[in-house]
Structure formats: structure tokens, C-alpha cells
């Protein structure tokens, strides 16, 4: 059930009605039921996988906490009788047991994810090596079911597990409550990756219907549909035309495709998240924001703090920090400082662990070399700009342009362009092709196609470009307004006719200009001799 299907709207409507009519204490159970139905409708088998993750993480999480409680009780009971060394030894024993449980859960769940998502990628590479080695032997690909949203719910469950292991959150005692945390349907398809700490605050609460919150949720959903249907799905036609026919569209087309894709991805992803957060808001549930006007970032590093935020912080908290401040890493840091000097030496751990993070980020996005190169490309850019930092500082000290609007715009444009270049790996079939297509931008010399009407051959009419331009301007204007607070609240402060005109107008725009359904093409209706 896609967000952009009639079924999804019907599903939401039904949920809203049930949610606010059942006794409040059943509300969260209803959410679990609907989440299961949502998943079941996609594919009944998906339920098996998500159940394994839910039950294993739930059970082992409880066990880990049980150990901590036993330790507490033991230490309290033997207060005064235990020496410092004995205490330490006992604590270590407990920690070891906890670590065993933790690793079991971790390996099981990341293992499922890895097998389902990456087996064929590994087979393809092994085949490649076999072929290169002159062996005629090939391994057949396996047909594995990849459950919808598995990357998201696995990460969410693993995050919970790590938090319990670290002792920063108490384990959830109720299996079904925990199951709801893992499977909460609005965020199942594309995130955000919520933390138990955040989501549990409102997920299980009893929610009274309140028009103000409910209408804000609907407004957010509508805005999400605007971005997705009017902008993303429209420009997607052009993006697909360009990237699926690399032989026909080289040079400036690649550049156009890059910029189109930047718009498509932004509108699609943030639009989807708007629908997710809006739907949750209608239910009185607060889901963490996943974007913070990312295209206004002045550097790639800042961009990654503002784009897909929950994924970034997940990787930072659960991979980057543990690796970079682990004992081995601190040792490496000592050694590297000794041999490489203080300045570079102390950054070695950071570089190594962020390498690991970006590798993981790439792999997480998809099972192909394209994403690995993409991830490491991000890493390289961030590291280079980190190394150039002193140079920047000197530059700014000398020219003091840092606060000038022009310079900021330059930084923003630079960031968007850099990110768009990296994203070409996301588009083309394989890595060599991506490099080749990227190269044609500098050799093809066909920049005139950007204004001589050639872009009208991409399956987009003049009216489509007009809609896209107007839509982009609208998104930009809303982003500018957002800097001084919620736009929905600003609209809510206006008189009723204005509010009505704004929201009904937006609804009509989505209704008429959204790209959905079969689409009208007069040629379909030309009388065809029947």
C-alpha cells in the first residue's frame, strides 16, 4: 500500500475514526493492529521477519536488563562485605553475560538484514572474481524476499537494544507495546528511524481528539502530497528518461538530470516524511523530524546534519562514537600522534571511524557498488574539507566574507552541487557508467540543450515545467518562512477565509496537478476503428 494510493487514504481514514471512538486505553493496541494489517497487506510473509526481530530484541533486551538488576540487588545485599576488587570482578562478570546476550541479538538481527539484502550482491561479486580468474563456474542468484522497510525497523530495534545494553533506557516489559514501537506503520516504509526514548513518550499515551492538532496533521499530510505528487512524481518522468537512456542523454543532459534528481529526491523524501509525521500527528503522536531544510546547508557536513537526520544520528551514536572512542582506537590515536605529529595524529581515529560509518551508510542505502562509492565519496569530501579547515580560517580572517549574503549563497549552491554530483552514483546502472556519464559533462559541449527546447523532449511539456517552477518557488518560499517558525501556525493565526483559501487551494492543486492515476492523454481516446 503506497502512501500515494487511494487504499492508503482509506486506511488512514478508517484508522482515525476507530482510533478516536475506541476507549482510550485501547488506542495503542489499535495502532498495533493496523500496523500488522498494513504489513500483512503488503505481503503476509513480511510479518514473520518483523516478528522474529520484535520477539528476539524484546526478549534479549529484558534479559540484559535482568542482569543489571541482579547486579544491583547483589551489590546492595553485600554492601560493606565486598572489597573493591571483588566488586569489580563481579561487575565484569555481569557485563560479560550482558555482552553475550547483546551480541546474540545483534548478530541475529543484523544477520537477517545482511542475508536478505546482500546475499545476491556478494554472489554477483564472487561470480565476477570467478570470471576474472578464468573459471567458468558461476553461483546462481537466490530469490530472497526483502521485507518492506526492513532496514528501518531493524535499525530502530537495534538502536533500542544498544540503549538498553548501555543502560540509558529501561527495557520495555510488554511485548505488544514493543511490537508497536518496531512496526508503527507510518514510519515503516521510509523512516524516520525513531528512538525508543522519543517515540515511547507519545506512542502509548491516551489521546483525546483535538481539532487543532488533528488539522495540523492533515495540513502536513497535504503538504507532503503536494511535494510528492505535484513535484517529485512529475520531475521523475524527466529523471528516468535521462538516466535510463545514457547513450542518448550525455553532457548537459547529465547535469540537467542531476539537478532534476536533486529536486525529485528532496520532494519525494521530505514529502513522504511529511505524510508520516502528519499522520502520526493526527493520532497525537510525535515523530522526530528527519529534515531541517537541508538544501540551505553551507557544507556537506552540515548537510548531513540536516538531511535524513535520524539516520545520521543513528550512525553517529551507534557506530561512529563506539568505534572512535573504543580502547583500540584510543591506542591507535596515541601511536599515530607519536609518529604523525599531534595535528594529524589525533584525527586518525576520527577519520578511520568515519570511514567505517560512510562505508556502512553506503551499504545500508543499497546492495551495490554504486552506493559504496557514493558513501565513500561523501566521506572523502567531508575529510578534505576538514583538512582544509585551517586554510578556510586564514581565508576568512583575511577577507571576512563569512557573513556576507553573497558568500553564503555561494556556499549553499556549492553544497547542493557537490551533493548532486555525488548522487549521480545513485542514478546510473553501475560505477564505470557513472564516471563516464559524469565525464561527458565536460566533453560533450551541448550546453545549448538547456535553453533550446530540447528539454521538452524528456516527456515533460511546457506546462509541466511551469508547474515544477512554480512548485519549487512555493517550496522555497515556505522554507524561507519556516526560518521564523512553523508556517502552519502562521497560517492558523489568519482569519478563517484566508486559512480556508490556503488549504483548499493547496488541496485543489494536488488534486488537479498531482501526477497520479492513469493520466489523461487525448490520444488514448482517439477513435481506433472498433
Amino acid at each position, binding site marked *: 500500500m503506497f502512501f500515494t494510493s*487511494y487504499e492508503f487514504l482509506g486506511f488512514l481514514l478508517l484508522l482515525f475514526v476507530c482510533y478516536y471512538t475506541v476507549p482510550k486505553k485501547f488506542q495503542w493496541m489499535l495502532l498495533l493492529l493496523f500496523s500488522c494489517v498494513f504489513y500483512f497487506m503488503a505481503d503476509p510473509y513480511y510479518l514473520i521477519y518483523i516478528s522474529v526481530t520484535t520477539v528476539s530484541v524484546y526478549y534479549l533486551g529484558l534479559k540484559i536488563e535482568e542482569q543489571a538488576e541482579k547486579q544491583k540487588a547483589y551489590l546492595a545485599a553485600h554492601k560493606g562485605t565486598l572489597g573493591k576488587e571483588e566488586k569489580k570482578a563481579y561487575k565484569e562478570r555481569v557485563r560479560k553475560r550482558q555482552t553475550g546476550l547483546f551480541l546474540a541479538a545483534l548478530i541475529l538481527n543484523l544477520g537477517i538484514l545482511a542475508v536478505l539484502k546482500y546475499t545476491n550482491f556478494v554472489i554477483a561479486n564472487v561470480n565476477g572474481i570467478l570470471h576474472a580468474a578464468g573459471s567458468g563456474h558461476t553461483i546462481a542468484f537466490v530469490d530472497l524476499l526483502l521485507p518492506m522497510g526492513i532496514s528501518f525497523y531493524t535499525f530502530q530495534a537495534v538502536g533500542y537494544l544498544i540503549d538498553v545494553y548501555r543502560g540509558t533506557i529501561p527495557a520495555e516489559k510488554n511485548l505488544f507495546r514493543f511490537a508497536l514501537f518496531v512496526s508503527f506503520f507510518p514510519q515503516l516504509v521510509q523512516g524516520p528511524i525513531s528512538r525508543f526514548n522519543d517515540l515511547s513518550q507519545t506512542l502509548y499515551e491516551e489521546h483525546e481528539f483535538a481539532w487543532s492538532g488533528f488539522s495540523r496533521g492533515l495540513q502536513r499530510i497535504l503538504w507532503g502530497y503536494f511535494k510528492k505528487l505535484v513535484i517529485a512524481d512529475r520531475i521523475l518522468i524527466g529523471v528516468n528518461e535521462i538516466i535510463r537512456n545514457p547513450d542518448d542523454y550525455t553532457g548537459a543532459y547529465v547535469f540537467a538530470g542531476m539537478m532534476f534528481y536533486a529536486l525529485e529526491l528532496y520532494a519525494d523524501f521530505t514529502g513522504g516524511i511529511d505524510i508520516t509525521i502528519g499522520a502520526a500527528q493526527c493520532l497525537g503522536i510525535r515523530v522526530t523530524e528527519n529534515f531541517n531544510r537541508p538544501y540551505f546547508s553551507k557544507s556537506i557536513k552540515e548537510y548531513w546534519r540536516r538531511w535524513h537526520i535520524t539516520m545520521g544520528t543513528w550512525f553517529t551514536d551507534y557506530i561512529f562514537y563506539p568505534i572512535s572512542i573504543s580502547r583500540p582506537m584510543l591506542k591507535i590515536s596515541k601511536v599515530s600522534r607519536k609518529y604523525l605529529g599531534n595535528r594529524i595524529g589525533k584525527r586518525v581515529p576520527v577519520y578511520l571511524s568515519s570511514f567505517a560509518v560512510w562505508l556502512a551508510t553506503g551499504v545500508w542505502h543499497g546492495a551495490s557498488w554504486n552506493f559504496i562509492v557514493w558513501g565513500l565519496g561523501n566521506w572523502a569530501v567531508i575529510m578534505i574539507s576538514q583538512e582544509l579547515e585551517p586554510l578556510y580560517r586564514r581565508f576568512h580572517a583575511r577577507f571576512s566574507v563569512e557573513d556576507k549574503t553573497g558568500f553564503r549563497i555561494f556556499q549553499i549552491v556549492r553544497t547542493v552541487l557537490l551533493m548532486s554530483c555525488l548522487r549521480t552514483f545513485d542514478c546510473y546502472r553501475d560505477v564505470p557508467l557513472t564516471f563516464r556519464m559524469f565525464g561527458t559533462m565536460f566533453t560533450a559541449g551541448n550546453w545549448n540543450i538547456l535553453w533550446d527546447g530540447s528539454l521538452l523532449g524528456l516527456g515533460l*511539456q511546457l*506546462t509541466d515545467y511551469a508547474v515544477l517552477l512554480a512548485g519549487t518557488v512555493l517550496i522555497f518560499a515556505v522554507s524561507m518562512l519556516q526560518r521564523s517558525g512553523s508556517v502552519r501556525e502562521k497560517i492558523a493565526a489568519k482569519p*478563517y477565509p484566508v486559512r*480556508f483559501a490556503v488549504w*483548499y487551494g493547496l488541496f*485543489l492543486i494536488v*488534486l*488537479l*496537478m*498531482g*501526477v*497520479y*492515476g*492513469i*493520466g*489523461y492523454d*487525448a490520444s*488514448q*481516446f*482517439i*477513435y*481506433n*476503428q*472498433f
Partner: protein
Amino acid sequence: MKRKRIIRAVCSVLVVVSTLFMLQKLLLPKYVSDVVEGRLIAEYYAEEKDHDVIFIGDCEVYENFSPKILWEDYGINSYIRGSAQQLIWQSYYLLEDTLRYEKPKVVVFNVLALKYNEPQSEAYNRMSLEGMRWSMAKVKAIQASMTDEEHFLDYVFPILRYHSRWSSLKAEDVEYLFADRKVSHNGYYMRVDVKPAKDVPEGKMLADYRFGENAYRYLDKMTKLCRDNGIELVLVKAPSLYPYWYDEWEQQIEDYARQNGLLYINFLELAEETGLDYNSDTYDGGLHLNLSGAEKITAYLGQVLRDEYHLADRRPEERLSRIWADKAAAYEQDRKRQEEEMEKQ
């Protein structure tokens, strides 16, 4: 305060409903200048429903039979409920729909549609189904006709289907927002131009000549519906040379007609009796008849209907005569207009 809120809510709902209604009206294709086939089904509802004969079927009925001839020559009051590539289940449900308003004595069904066993084209579905008034028959017709890409909701709210037409609206969309323009003569779509039939291709070999199960099921339903209502069902095959009518198909229909005691007329075999001349009586090389061809075979059919089913000559009915006098005038006008246009070219 509370009253103010209620008034506000009511006003808002009114604005929403009325604007959506208007937009939907505006965005629907009008089918007035070209592709008039899209209007055929809807025109029926404005008629006085007291017909002796109802034709159902695809273009092989609405381009090949002229109710005006049945009236003028035999005093038979008839109407054609046909549309482009009207599939057999659509014909069946259109018959159900027709029976809600009137009970004809004879129903004539053109058998070409049996060749289709599954839903075919979304656009043709639209043209056949959109004109139908809402009833259970329409609901079932939609369900039977939908291709995989279609959604029932798109029929309930056609604005969802045609929302993107805003960029191709024409003056006629405003002109015919509420106005109607008759495009047919009791369901007959008139063409007077001539294009002789030459080199009609032979039918390609088929893997299986047997009509599909689904198609047969609806033919059975149709037979039963007529029998239950005391209506005589007549099967016809119009004299169109293409799509090719296979001998194997012919055999099946002949068998079916015999087993069910139905009259079956194959006009392909009656060129001599009807006087049909494929050099002058078709406008597109043998696919459809022009006016001259349609009038010839209708004259023949009228005689059969009168003789077989003893349909009374209703020309003495004064009211009906008046109605038909108007219709005939419009018919002649249409013919004259088309002939003049032809001469200009």
C-alpha cells in the same frame, strides 16, 4: 459563537462541493467535436422510453443500423445502445440498465463482441461506461470491465481520472459545460462518405477459435434475461468485412442459436438479398457501413423483424409520429450537412 461556527462549516462544505462539481464537469471530455462515440450511451436517457426494438453491441450496431429506416418503412420504434468496442458484459449490463426503464419486444445483439473474453482498453471502458446512469447494473458493468490499472473510485469521481486535463482544456469544454449536443440518431452514428472496400486482409490464424468462457457466460446471461422478461433475442453479425469473422466462429454462433432457439442473421452472407455494395456502401474500406449501406441492411432487418415477431406498425400513433418527424428532420439535416462538407473537400 457556536452558530457562527456552524454557518462557517456549512458555507465551507458548500463551496467545496460546488467547486468540485463544477471542476469535474469542466474536466470531463465533452466528446462533441471528435470522438463523439463517448456520448452515445448517455443520450438514451433523454429519450421517451417506449421502444419495440433495442440494439446492443459495438460499432457493428451503432454504425450499421438506422432506426429511422425501421420507423419510416415499418413503423418500428427502436434505439441503439452501442458504443466503441462495447464488450459483451457491457452490452449485457446496458440491457439490464435499459430494462429498468422499458421492456422492448425484441433485442438485437451483434455477436462480434464474443471475441473478447477479458477487459481490453481503459479508454473504451470509459466511453462505454461513463454515460451510464448509476445503478447496480453500472456498478457490475464497471467491475466486469476494469483493467488492472483501473480503480473503481475513478468511475465514482471521474475528476480523479481526468484531473490532468486542465492543461488541454478547449473552448468546447466551457461551451458544453451544461449544454448538450445530440450526436446520434437514436444511437445511430451517421457517416455519408464513401471508401470502397479493397484488399481486405484474410484473418490471421488463431491458436484457439473457441469463444472464451467469460464471453459465453454473458451470452447465456443475456439469453436468460431476455427469456425471463419475455423478450425475443436476435443475434446478428453485421456485414463488416473486418475484424475478420472466422468460419469457426460462425459455426459456434449457429450452434448456439439453434440450441437456444434464437434467430441468427449473418449479414455477411446476405449481400445479394440486401443489395449491399462494398464499393459504395462503406466509408472506411469495409469496416463500417456508411449511410447508404446502413439503410439497406436496416430495411432488410425490418422486414425480418416484422415478419418473425409481428411487430405492429406504430406509424398511426400520433404522438410518436410527431417525435419521429422531428428526428427525421434532424437526420436529413445531418445528412445534408455531411454531403455539403464532402463536396467542399
